[in-house]
């Protein structure tokens, strides 16, 4: 019983092995379906998928490059602006210093001028005063001279007219004369 069973099993295995299909034999239907599927996939991907990936790569590279160049440009602009501001600041600083200097010089000049003017004025006033005094004096001297002459003549004529006998008379005459002068002077005043 055991021997026939083993024999039958062996036979079955042999049959099975014989019946096994060859893995090397391609099935035409699979080739056809495979080729069609692969071709459709290829054309679909070429039209719809790969260009999008390439576009994304390109866009990204451009975005990065553009960003870098933009940043560089902004940096250059900022640097230029900063230099400009610094230049302006220095300019205005030196301007201010110059103006301050000019103002001080001007102020000093004005003070000098004023001083000179005041001095000249003072001198002028002094000179005018001197002149005035001199002329007053001259006028006084002139008038004095003429009056003294007259007075002397009057006095002399009196003295001569009254006779010059005694001392008392003489002094009376002089006193009277002086009183008259005083009176005339008081009238004149």
């Amino acid at each position, binding site marked *: 019983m055991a021997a026939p*069973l083993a024999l*039958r*099993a062996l036979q*079955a*295995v042999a*049959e*099975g*092995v014989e*019946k*096994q*299909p*060859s*893995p*090397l*034999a*391609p*099935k*035409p*239907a*699979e*080739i056809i*379906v*495979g*080729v069609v*599927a*692969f071709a*459709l*996939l*290829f054309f*679909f*991907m*070429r039209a*719809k*998928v*790969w260009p*999008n*990936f390439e*576009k*994304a*790569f390109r*866009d*990204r590279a451009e*975005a990065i490059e553009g960003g870098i160049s933009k940043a560089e440009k902004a940096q250059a602009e900022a640097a230029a602006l900063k230099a400009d501001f610094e230049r302006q600041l220095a300019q205005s600083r030196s301007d201010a210093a110059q103006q301050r200097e000019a103002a001080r010089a001007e102020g000093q000049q004005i003070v000098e001028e004023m001083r000179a003017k005041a001095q000249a004025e003072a001198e002028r006033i002094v000179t005018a005063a001197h002149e005035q005094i001199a002329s007053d004096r001259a006028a006084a001297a002139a008038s004095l001279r003429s009056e003294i002459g007259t007075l002397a003549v009057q006095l002399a004529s009196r003295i001569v007219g009254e006779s010059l006998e005694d001392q008392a008379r003489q002094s009376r005459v002089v006193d009277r004369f002086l009183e008259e002068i005083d009176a005339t002077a008081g009238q004149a005043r």
Partner: protein
Amino acid sequence: MIYALVPTQFTPPGPIDFEYPGIAGTFVTKPMLIIVLGSVAVAWFLWAASRRAAIVPGKLQYTGEALYGFVRNQIAIDSIGREGIKYVPYLATLFFFVAALNISGIIPLVQFPATSRIAIPLFLAIITWAIFNYIGMRRVGVGHYFKAMMFPPGIPKPVYVLLAPIELLSTFFFRPITLCLRLTFNMFAGHLVLLLSILGGEYLLTKTGGVVGYAAGSVSILGGIVLTAFEGFVQLLQAYVFTLLSALYIGGALADEH
């Protein structure tokens, strides 16, 4: 068939497990559905990821871009050079198509790598072969192309007796064959190993029983889970290898006489 005859014997998985009966008619089988749905999934995922093409990408777009960028820069441009950009549409489609049909091997419920069906690596290898030969022939002419291939300069004359046929075979015939078989049987073997660990473990747990059965069955199932993770790695790696070799062949055809 064998079950009916010897019900107590474990039937190891074999090439028969790669043959699926038609779901609706004989044409619509599981591998067929995987081919179609895998392509649709790839198209949908990458279309959704690339649709907005924003400068600042979201998570989805970032993932799509990283994968596409990997094929574009690490595979196409690195192995072909600047000119490689022209072949990125083919190489990227190739990578995602193969990756999707490989990964279907570990996606729950799908769990079958469609690329283990030789039909798919076969036509992909033929496309790559046609492209790189066409490029080479168009660039230097048919005669010069074969002459440059078989008679590389700077070698003693008698050596050409050996070298010429080897070069012709390796470049013109073995390249597409190895490209096809490498992918097919990596996927085939990987799937077979997973089947064996899972089905074997199941058999040990349910049919054999006992201490030995449970212990060995558990180890087998756990091993199957670990191998599934490993398979995922292999599947992505093989998609990369297929694409990289395609790129290298194209690059070789574009380069000056080697």
